[in-house]
């Protein structure tokens, strides 16, 4: 494998990891506050649909993003209502959201556009264009650094940079602000937070809302950045991979960056080398495609260290019994 190939694979890694990173951070906020969310997939799907639909109708990519965030927030609100206010089972609510999004997107898409649930293909202006960072052309001819800067770092859409920026931002919010401390406390010991006079419900709703915004960005990036429109079930399980990455990252923002990049890298390698020939035997592509899941199972089995979820995760908070 030469250097140019490596750069191409890493470039692809960044693109593939971005939606995972958004979704993973989304799950991180929600789960750190004690609300399990397996509805990431559904929220991404709804966001991808509405962002593509609005971008197709208005021709504005930013209105599309806003619409995507709105769709995702709406589903987050439902999840919050079910899981926080009505103390329902969070897993079941998440599953319901996945089904709801899966059906609703196709139904509305067919009703609005009559294309079998797809949205019309987006043209220029309705999609995110790659951004060329300053001096990319000037630096490009340099050896090593040139390709790294011009091809790997430059030339992505703005949401990619936003996703990367979300990592330190999330870490800062979670570990350096009062809100972050409370959010983490609500996920570990909500009674203590309540005793301190802080609304558990309020913090949890805030966390779920942040989750909605991030999932909205993930979905919008899929539909407006990577593809050119919505196609049914286009998230293709990325929400669940993000959940796996979240466990792999042990619910920490910087680890989340590493985990999603690793999963993106595995997918990029699988794309580039359908089967990896090791001389003696060849690794089939199916194995490479399954690697993220295998790694997650290994993690869960405790081989690479313990992944401990927030203690109050999945438990609705009941003030008095």
């Amino acid at each position: 494998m030469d250097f140019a190939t490596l750069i191409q694979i890493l470039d692809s890694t960044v693109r593939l990891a971005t939606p995972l990173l958004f979704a993973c951070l989304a799950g991180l906020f929600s789960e750190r506050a004690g609300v399990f969310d397996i509805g990431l997939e559904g929220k991404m799907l709804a966001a991808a649909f509405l962002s593509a639909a609005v971008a197709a109708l208005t021709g504005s990519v930013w209105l599309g993003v806003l619409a995507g965030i709105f769709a995702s927030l709406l589903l987050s609100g439902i999840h919050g209502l079910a899981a926080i206010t009505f103390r329902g089972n969070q897993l079941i609510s998440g599953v319901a959201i996945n089904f709801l999004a899966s059906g609703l997107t196709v139904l509305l898409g067919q009703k609005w556009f009559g294309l079998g649930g797809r949205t019309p293909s987006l043209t220029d202006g309705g999609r995110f264009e790659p951004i060329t960072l300053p001096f990319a052309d000037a630096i490009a001819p340099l050896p090593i650094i040139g390709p790294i800067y011009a091809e790997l770092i430059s030339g992505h859409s703005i949401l990619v940079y936003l996703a990367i920026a979300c990592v330190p931002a999330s870490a800062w919010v979670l570990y350096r602000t009062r809100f972050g401390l409370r959010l983490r406390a609500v996920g570990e010991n909500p009674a203590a937070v309540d005793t301190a006079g802080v609304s558990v419900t309020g913090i949890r709703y805030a966390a779920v809302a942040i989750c909605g915004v991030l999932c909205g960005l993930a979905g919008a990036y899929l539909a407006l950045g990577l593809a050119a429109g919505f196609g049914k079930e286009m998230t293709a399980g990325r929400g669940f991979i993000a959940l796996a990455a979240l466990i792999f990252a042990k619910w920490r923002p910087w680890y989340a960056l590493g985990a999603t990049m690793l999963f993106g890298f595995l997918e990029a390698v699988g794309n580039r080398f359908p089967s990896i020939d090791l001389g003696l035997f060849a690794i089939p592509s199916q194995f490479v495609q399954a690697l993220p899941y295998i790694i997650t199972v290994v993690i869960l089995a405790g081989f690479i260290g313990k992944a401990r979820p927030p203690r109050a995760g999945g438990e609705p908070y009941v003030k008095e019994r």
Partner: protein
Amino acid sequence: MTLMKHLAAATASLALTAGMAAADPALIFDLGGKFDKSFNESAYEGAQRWAKETGGSYKELEIQSEAQREQAIRRLAESGANPIVVMSFSNIETLNTVAPDFPETKFVLIDGVVEQPNVRSIVFAEHEGSYLVGMLAAMASKSGTAGFIGGMDIPLIRQFGCGYAQGVKAVNPDATVLTNMTGSTGAAWNDPVKGGELAKSQISQGADVIFAAAGGTGLGVLQAAADAGVLSIGVDSNQNYLHPGKVLTSMLKRVDNAVYESFKAGEALEPGMINMNLSLQGVGYALDDNNKDLITDEMKAKVDEAAAKIASGELKIHDYHSDNTCPAVTF
């Protein structure tokens, strides 16, 4: 109790009307969905053409999951629809179970073979059509590298890839053919993001013509190719119009003709197996206003010559199904 009565009455009247409306043909779309711009949509067009010409009506059903296959076929058969056209090889086992239960109903299976006395199996010579677009790809390619992106990794899709690679190699024996499969589950038909990423990966390896045989995933391939300024080849339906001037051609699989003919035959449909090959014009390549500047007269002449030779049996294209290997490419 009254509710139960109402329900019973409703079902009874439903069954009655269904019985009276008998002999309407029916069409069951597969997981890709009716408007996949490809395989299923082609069937839809055939059914629409029949409806327009005869003024008849037909029933249709889009299945949403694997579990619905048997239920869907049974429901339509019970409603009296005849014949019932079922799309996709995925229904082979289902039809083997269901068809004997409805001996009076005729079934048509597209893309698979079921040996039952009331089933007509229609298969297509995908390798022959793919061979033709492979030749076009090789002639249009400047880099000598052509790409193939398949949907779900199954023998049928390998059949496309194998014919394509043979066509490429026939024109340019030194050409490289890159192959990728999107995945090994049904999700591989609906992942335009991954399709686009696979296309980018092949483009970075030098491919300047990419053939997508991947349903909805292929839309992502065509998009990524158009964005990067390289040519792509559509599949099943004519997809040239999706990116005018950037789609070299489309490998046509005349599913529409198969559905149209089946509907037209109605209840008198002959069971058995039909191989829609080049000589029956079951497959071919698309030439229209959108791609006429991409296909030169010389290219057209060469491909048409090969098509005539294949149709007459003079030129044999290796059939992947015959031995599950491909001489031109490894998957």
